[in-house]
């Protein structure tokens, strides 16, 4: 199916290039139809062949190697961000489900935190690099990007898990309580297992959030080595080499898909003992 959908997208792109207006369509003076010329929409094969050519002339590094390296760099940052975000998210949700007071006090702040634009936050967090020292460890520059990834990923995870923890049937909770089960036992044996169908989609959102956070942080703070930085560096050459920037954009897209794939695999593993219809 996935392959088929890619073929479909490629076909649509190339079809638009054939039928679409070269210089874009305008309606009441506002551009509504994108331009279909080679600068705005390079042919798919131009983009693909760009992967095989050297990044800059005289360099023996081909674009696909550079993009792959960049994606791998960003992937590691996104994983760190995601792990950080999910532990904070799950931790907060456990805290919130345990104490109603915390939930009522904290949840509005979590919502507010997500309205802060990432690009406003990024330069601030980036400045911590090489400056902050926590327990004797210097805050590395790359960690700022990971933290911004965590910032985008913890929220859906916290909210999803909170909802999931509350989803345990009241009768089951009462049964556990009647057996004098401790709060911890109820949490681990009942609440978490019943929260998994809620947590998996939340984690998927969180995973893509961490990729977006890392890529935006790289663009905004200029962290070297990642795919976000590649996008902006290649975008500078878009005048004369428009296909090049697409190679990096595809790299970023592949990165997001990989992250979602990792979660999907864990989904299959965690849900293996469940009846099919509860699977999300």
């Amino acid at each position: 199916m996935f392959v088929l959908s890619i073929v479909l997208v490629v076909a649509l792109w190339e079809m638009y290039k054939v039928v679409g207006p070269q210089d874009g369509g305008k309606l009441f003076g506002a551009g509504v139809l994108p331009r279909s010329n080679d600068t705005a929409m390079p042919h798919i094969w131009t983009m693909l062949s760009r992967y095989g050519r050297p990044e800059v002339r005289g360099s023996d590094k081909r674009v696909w190697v550079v993009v792959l390296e960049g994606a791998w760099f960003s992937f590691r940052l996104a994983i760190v961000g995601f792990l950080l975000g999910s532990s904070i998210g799950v931790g907060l949700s456990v805290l919130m489900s345990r104490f109603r007071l915390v939930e009522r006090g904290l949840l509005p702040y979590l919502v507010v935190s997500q309205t802060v634009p990432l690009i406003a936050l990024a330069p601030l967090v980036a400045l911590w690099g090489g400056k902050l020292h926590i327990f004797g460890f210097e805050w590395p520059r790359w960690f700022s990007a990971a933290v911004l990834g965590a910032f985008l990923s913890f929220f859906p995870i916290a909210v999803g898990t909170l909802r999931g923890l509350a989803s345990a049937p009241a009768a089951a909770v009462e049964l556990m309580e009647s057996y004098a089960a401790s709060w911890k036992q109820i949490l681990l044996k009942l609440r978490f297992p019943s929260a998994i169908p809620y947590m998996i989609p939340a984690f998927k959102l969180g995973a893509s959030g961490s990729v977006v956070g890392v890529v935006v942080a790289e663009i905004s703070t200029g962290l070297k080595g990642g795919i976000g930085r590649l996008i902006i560096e290649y975008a500078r050459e878009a005048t004369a080499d428009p296909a090049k920037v697409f190679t990096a954009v595809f790299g970023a897209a592949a990165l997001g898909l990989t992250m979602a794939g990792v979660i999907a695999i864990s989904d299959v593993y965690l849900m293996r003992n469940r009846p099919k219809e509860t699977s999300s």
Partner: protein
Amino acid sequence: MKKSSIKLAVAGLAALSLVVAACGSSDEAATDTTAAAAVVTPEECVTPTPVKLQLQWFTQAQFAGYYAALENGYYADMCLDVTILEGAVDISPQTVLANGEADFAVSWVSKALAAREGGANIVDIAQVFQRSGTLQVSFKDAAIATSADFKGKKIGNWGYGNEFEIFAALTKAGLDPATDVTLVQQQFDMSGLLAGDIDAAEAMTYNEYAQVLETINPATKALYTADDLNVVSYEAEGVGMLQDAIWADGHRLFNTDYNATAVKFVAASLMGWAFCRDDAQACTDIVVAKGSKLGATHQLWQMNEVNKLIWPAPAGVGMIDEAAWTRTVDLSLTAKNLEGGTVLTKAPSDAAHTNEIVTAALALLTEKGIDINGAAFAPITVTLTEGGN
């Protein structure tokens, strides 16, 4: 039971916020730890002074002099351990410097003065670029030969404080930016001009202008040439504003150690620029080796154009020309933007720039027998190729 656990949770949160606050306030005293590892140490230099330089943008030939000074060991010879911090979309060198995250910063004068008016105590200690490199580029058929021809046209500008010269030119030509022209926010490439969204696009001589000349003209199947284009140079229009300068922390300049470091830093940096003047190709190679993603011929073009902005320097490289400084300040006070506001609301104090540091630095260079004027400087001819590769 329940009550006590709530208390516990509240106490826990309070403790957590304390930890966070404590981390936030740990200050720069510790920045020195990593930088102490010296690579080159002449006999008299035991521990080189760590210095951080914040650039305005990614590594490119615009900053070649600093990279050349680093690679050729000019900084090390002055007993400095320099770290060059690249810029990015949301990095403002003025802010980084004012916050103490860097010891020196490269920034345009008008932008830095705006930051200074906002409370950042930063001082121009060396005016590396003596001339403005900003152009407004248009195709011949748009017939825009001077800024007076902007009337009724779509004028591209970058924003982010890079647009002040456009407003200065409009004001000088007697045009109202709000009604007489259509100002278009421009990407950091020239596709807007090529696609016809913009009649005249903002461009630096050393970067975007070359990008147009590296693009194939669909009509002729060959690269665009300078003959296809009209170029309005703000320097020639008389509204050029001073650009790349080295800025220092105004408070710390009273500290004798920092002051001495500033002299050495400026001297070594200018030595790097002198090296780039004499060997543009070698400097380009240094920048390319530093991981710039721009093509090699594009970088060579950039190096050559940047050299033209610096050399010849009759008063000595890095000296702040009072006339150019006054012009920049005057334009910042009078050029009106869309909302009718100006860059600066009042003239900066005299403390905003000083020639003391650069004078001392040039004395050091003259001692070493380095040509600080470049009177014999002749730009090379760079042939651009498609895509700048």
